[in-house]
C-alpha cells in the first residue's frame, strides 16, 4: 500500500536563549506546543498521538524524561513515543511522527523536541573520560575539528569560507525573532578575528548553547484540507552508519550521501540545486555548510565551498541556506533538527516572516547527529505530491 499524504499545518518554537530560567522543561515544551497548536487551529484534544525527542539524557540528567513530561505534553490517554538519535533527533522525531500519519495509523500527530542546555553542561556530558582510553576528547568541537581540517585539505577551500557561513547565518538570525544569537555587528572579519577554540574552528564559527523547543502538528490529507497553507511531505529519510569503521569517510559520510540520494529519488528531484528553493541544513560548526552541500548532492565533491563563497547560499542566492540563522544562531540540541524541519515547512507555507524566501515551493530540512553517524532529512513542498 502506498503512503498516505501527510502535511505540516502547525509549527511552533520558543524564544531560544542561553538560559530560559523562567520555565521548566515541561513549560518550555508547552511554549512551542501551544504555538504549533494555535498555528494549526487545533487543541490538544484533537491530537491522536504525541512523539517527543531530545538528545542524550545526560544533558539534563533526567533519565527517560518522557515519563514525567507525559501529562504536561497532553499525552494522558494517548500514545506517547520518545525518539533518540543524538543531534539528529529533532529530525528523526518529526519523521517518526510523519510516518504515523503516512501509515494511516493516526490522523493528527503532535511532535515536539527540546533541550534545556542550561540545566547542565553539554561539553562535560560529551567528554566524560572512559577508563583505559586517552582523555583527549573535547566535546563536539573537539570531535569535528579534525574532520573540518580534513575537508579544507581535501577540497583546497580558502580558510575564510567558514567565516562567510558564520557571518551569513548570524545576519540571517536578525530576521528571526526566535533566534538566540543577535549580533548585528558580525562580519567575516570579526569572525576571523575571534578566538580559535578547536583549531581550525573559531569561537564565532561555533553554535551557541541554548534552551529551546520546537513543535509541529502533522496531519492527514482530510485534516490538511482545512489549512490555508499546508506544507506537504514529499519525502523522508533516515540513515545511520558505523562510527569507527576503517577508512570511513568522515568528511563526506556514506550514510548522508545515500540518504540524500534516496530523498531526491522519492521526490523526483534530479537537479537539487535548481529545484530546491530553500534549505535548512544542520550546521553546528560553520564549515559543515560546504561539507553538507557536497554530501547532499547540491554540488560536486570539493565544490561546496565555491557555492558558499560566491554568495550562492545567502538569502538572495541560488540556494538560500539557513535563512532562520540555523544551528549557528540557536542550538537547543534536541530541538535543533526539528527547527530545521519546521523552518523548511514555514518556507513552503510562506510563513517564515522576515526570513521568508520569496516564492519558495520546495524546501529541505536536514539534521545529523552522533559522530556524523545519524542522518535525517525531509523534503516539503507547497504542492501536494503527485507520487
Amino acid at each position, binding site marked *: 500500500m502506498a503512503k498516505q499524504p501527510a502535511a505540516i499545518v502547525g509549527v511552533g518554537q520558543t524564544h531560544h536563549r542561553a538560559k530560559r*530560567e523562567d520555565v521548566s522543561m515541561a513549560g518550555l515544551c508547552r511554549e512551542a506546543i501551544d504555538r504549533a497548536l494555535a498555528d494549526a487551529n487545533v487543541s490538544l484534544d484533537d491530537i491522536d498521538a504525541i512523539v517527543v525527542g531530545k538528545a542524550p539524557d545526560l544533558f539534563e540528567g533526567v533519565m527517560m524524561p518522557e515519563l514525567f513530561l507525559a501529562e504536561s505534553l497532553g499525552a494522558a490517554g494517548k500514545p506517547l513515543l520518545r525518539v533518540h538519535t543524538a543531534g539528529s533527533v529533532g529530525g528523526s522525531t518529526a519523521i517518526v511522527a510523519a510516518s504515523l500519519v503516512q501509515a494511516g495509523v493516526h490522523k493528527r500527530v503532535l511532535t515536539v523536541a527540546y533541550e534545556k542546555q*542550561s540545566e547542565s553542561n553539554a*561539553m562535560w556530558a560529551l*567528554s*566524560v573520560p572512559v577508563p583505559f582510553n586517552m582523555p583527549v576528547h*573535547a566535546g563536539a568541537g573537539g570531535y569535528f575539528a579534525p574532520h573540518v581540517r580534513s575537508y579544507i585539505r581535501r577540497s583546497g577551500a580558502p580558510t575564510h569560507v567558514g567565516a562567510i557561513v558564520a557571518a551569513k547565518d548570524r545576519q540571517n538570525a536578525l530576521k528571526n525573532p526566535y533566534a538566540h544569537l543577535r549580533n548585528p555587528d558580525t562580519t567575516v572579519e570579526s569572525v576571523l578575528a575571534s578566538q*580559535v577554540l578547536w583549531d581550525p574552528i573559531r569561537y564565532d564559527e561555533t553554535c551557541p548553547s541554548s534552551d529551546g523547543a520546537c513543535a509541529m502538528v502533522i496531519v492527514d490529507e482530510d485534516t490538511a484540507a482545512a489549512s490555508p497553507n499546508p506544507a506537504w511531505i514529499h519525502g523522508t529519510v533516515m540513515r545511520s552508519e558505523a562510527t*569507527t569503521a*576503517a577508512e570511513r569517510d568522515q568528511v563526506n559520510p556514506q550514510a548522508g550521501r545515500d540518504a540524500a540520494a534516496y530523498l531526491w529519488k522519492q521526490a523526483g528531484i534530479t537537479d537539487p540545486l535548481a529545484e530546491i528553493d530553500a534549505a535548512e541544513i544542520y550546521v553546528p560548526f560553520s564549515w559543515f555548510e560546504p561539507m553538507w552541500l557536497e554530501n547532499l548532492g547540491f554540488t560536486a565533491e570539493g565544490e561546496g565551498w565555491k557555492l558558499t563563497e560566491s554568495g550562492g547560499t545567502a538569502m538572495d542566492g541560488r540556494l538560500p541556506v539557513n535563512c532562520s540563522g540555523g544551528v549557528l544562531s540557536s542550538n537547543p540540541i534536541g530541538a535543533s533538527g526539528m527547527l530545521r524541519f519546521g523552518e523548511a515547512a514555514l518556507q513552503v507555507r510562506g510563513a517564515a516572516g522576515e526570513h521568508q524566501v520569496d516564492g519558495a515551493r520546495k524546501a529541505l530540512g536536514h539534521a545529523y547527529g552522533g559522530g556524523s553517524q545519524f542522518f535525517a532529512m525531509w523534503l516539503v513542498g507547497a504542492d501536494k505530491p503527485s507520487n
Partner: protein
Amino acid sequence: MSRTLSAPVTVAFDYTRSTGPVLGRFLTGLREKRVVGVRTSEGRVVVPPPEFDPVTHQQVDDFVEVADTGTVTSWTWVPEPVEGQPLDRPFAFALVTLDGADAPMVHALDVSSPDQVRTGMRVRVRWAEERVGAITDVACFEPAEDAPTGSAIELGDLGANPVTGVVTPVELDYQYAASPEESAFYRAIAEGRIIGQRCPACGKVYVPPRSACPADGTPTTDEVELSHTGTVTTFCIVNVPFLGQRITPPYVSAYVLLDGADIAFLHLILDIPAEEVRMGMRVKAVWKPREEWGTTIENISHFSPTGEPDADYDTYKHHL
C-alpha cells in the same frame, strides 16, 4: 585472572532545574513552612501541584494552601536505607493525603518498625530546621494521632524572593568493563606492545581491536603486532578549557594511523609547537617510565615527531 578488565567510573554533576512558576510556588511555600497545592478544573486539590491541568491542559493557577497534617493511604517498609534517601535508619515510604487535598503525595515516614505504620494513621510534616525552597524542606512525616483535621484555604502572599530554581546533584557509579579484545589490547600495552586485530573478511586491521569488524560484523580473531610509529592523518588544537578536562590546553588531539593499521586513533602530540603539527607528520610513541605502566593507553605519554619526511597525502587520504 579475569578475562576482561574493568574500572570504576563516576559520572556526577550538580544539575540545575528551572522550576517554572507552578513548582516554584510550591517550593517557595515549603521554605515558609506552608504546603501549596492547586485546585484542578475538576475541583480536586492536588499536592504537589501539576504544572498543567489534566483536563483543560492549561497552566494551573487556582492555588490553595493545605494543612501540614494528613492521613496515610498506603505505605511500604524500607529496612535498609541507601545513600541519598530521606532518613539514614529504617523507615516507611508513605502516600499521605494532606488535610484539604484530594490526592496523596509520597514522602518518608519516620517510625522505627513496620508495626507502627498502618493505613489510615494520622501524620504531620516534620519541617527541616533550615529550609531553602526544596522538597527536602519537608524532612519527613511523623506520627500525629491526635492532630485535628485541617482543610484547604486560599493561598495568601508567599513573600519576597520566590524560588525559581533548585540544584539537584546527580551521581552515577558504574563499573566500566572493557571487551575481551580491548582487554587483550590493554594487557599488551602493559607489556609495552601495541596489538591490533585483522578482520578475516575484509582484511582491515583495527587498533584497538573490536569484538567484531564494524564494517561487516565478522568477529576479529587474528592478532597483529603493530609498529610504534605512524602518521598524523588529521588533528585539532584544543584551546578551550572545560569542566572535567584532564589535559591542560592548548594541546594537540590527533588521529594517529600506526604503520600496519587501517584505522587511526586519537592521542596527544607533544615535543613540537602546536602550530607546527601537520597532516602527514610522522610520529612515534613515547612511553612513560615502565614503573608507571598500567593497563591503559596512557602508558603512551604522547606521540612525538620522528623527524622523517612527511607522509605523502595519497598514503593517508582515504583515512580522512
